[in-house]
């Protein structure tokens, strides 16, 4: 059963009571929240995600509630609770939906150590995955959204999950986080994209999330093999350009972008080295998606010939 089959009223009821249990990629989440923005965001962006049986094992329970005390009446706040703790400081209540997304990412990146977890976007075409690690402001999520809008399969815009068991990349297919100028860029480049309400004045600026395509959500059980490691960089006015880069240095950079490389020790080293072994590594500069996407398409096309 999909979340869309519940209707918004039932989504709100479940969120406000025992919790709404849904599956995103390899994880079952139980989400609890009486906050309307959470209901609206989930109903819009997670409509195509499967619900989880009440008796199923839940990997993570995420609770978002209004803070108590006088703050209920004066600039109300939302607090994320996980396993009885509060990992984040409370945020203004209208930041509730982005906070849910960040909280879900936090749960995975701090606990799912059966994966080597990279802070990187990852998309797939014809079975080959392109891993794009990059710091904030590099245009990683914008590029990810652009590629997904032109037929690349979304695995994740934030967390690349490389299985410790087989070295394959597990899809998450969660909504793509876009912020500030990226919002207008994507609305222009992909007018059909579904974005939820923009949240202003967050720590990352103005933030919205782009819905993953239903076809990508449907394929979350299909892993992908690493094929390219590309470090993107948005440079105003620059023509799109791919430049081959050192494999050894790419491996170290990937390690720096990993949440649990050190924790996994030798296993992490072997997985990362295998990723590099199987991948062509590039630096990529761009300023326009109209130029960037065809370059990526050409990489995939070269693979098919």
């Amino acid at each position, binding site marked *: 059963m999909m979340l869309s089959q519940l209707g918004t009223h039932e989504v709100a009821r479940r969120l406000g009571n025992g919790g709404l249990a849904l599956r995103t990629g390899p994880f079952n989440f139980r989400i609890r929240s009486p906050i309307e923005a959470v209901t609206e965001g989930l109903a819009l962006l997670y409509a195509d995600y499967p619900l989880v049986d009440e008796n199923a094992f839940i990997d993570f329970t995420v609770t978002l509630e209004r803070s108590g005390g006088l703050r209920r009446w004066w600039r109300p706040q939302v607090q994320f609770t996980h396993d009885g703790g509060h990992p984040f400081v409370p945020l203004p209540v209208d930041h509730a939906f982005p906070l849910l997304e960040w909280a879900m990412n936090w749960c995975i990146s701090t606990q799912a150590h059966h994966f080597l977890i990279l802070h990187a976007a990852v998309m797939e075409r014809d079975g080959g995955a392109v891993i794009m690690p990059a710091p904030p402001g590099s245009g990683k999520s914008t590029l990810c959204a652009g590629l997904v809008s032109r037929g690349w399969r979304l695995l994740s815009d934030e967390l690349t999950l490389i299985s410790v068991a087989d070295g394959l990349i597990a899809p998450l297919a969660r909504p793509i986080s876009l912020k500030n100028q990226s919002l207008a860029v994507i609305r222009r480049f992909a007018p059909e994209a579904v974005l939820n309400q923009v949240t202003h004045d967050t720590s990352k600026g103005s933030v919205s999330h782009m819905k993953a395509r239903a076809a990508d959500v449907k394929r979350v059980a299909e892993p992908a093999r690493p094929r390219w490691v590309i470090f993107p960089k948005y440079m105003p006015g620059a023509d799109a350009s791919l430049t081959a880069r050192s494999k050894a*240095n790419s491996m170290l950079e990937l390690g720096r972008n990993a949440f649990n490389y050190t924790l996994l020790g030798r296993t992490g080293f072997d997985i990362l080295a295998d990723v590099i*072994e199987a991948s062509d590594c590039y630096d990529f500069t761009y300023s326009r998606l109209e130029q960037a996407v065809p370059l990526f398409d050409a990489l995939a096309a070269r693979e098919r010939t």
Partner: protein
Amino acid sequence: MVWHLNALTALHWRHWDDEWVVFDAGSGQTHQMDTLTAVTLMVIEATPMPLADLVSQIAQELQLPNERELDLVLSGIVQRLASAGLIESAAP
């Protein structure tokens, strides 16, 4: 002075052409190296030896003619490997 691998070090190697990475399971650190540095570390890993012997062996293995120049280069490499905690020196 005899150079030997740090006793707490356990090395695991990968390379692509002339680029090397080595994981030290003892420290959990990963290092990137060029071929000469990698060969130096592997020779010391296999057999502890003083710098002079190291220079001779590597000059022979890599067929490098100028041992005096190599001595300077290897001296720097050995110092860097020691700074990274991968090797140590001991009295013979």
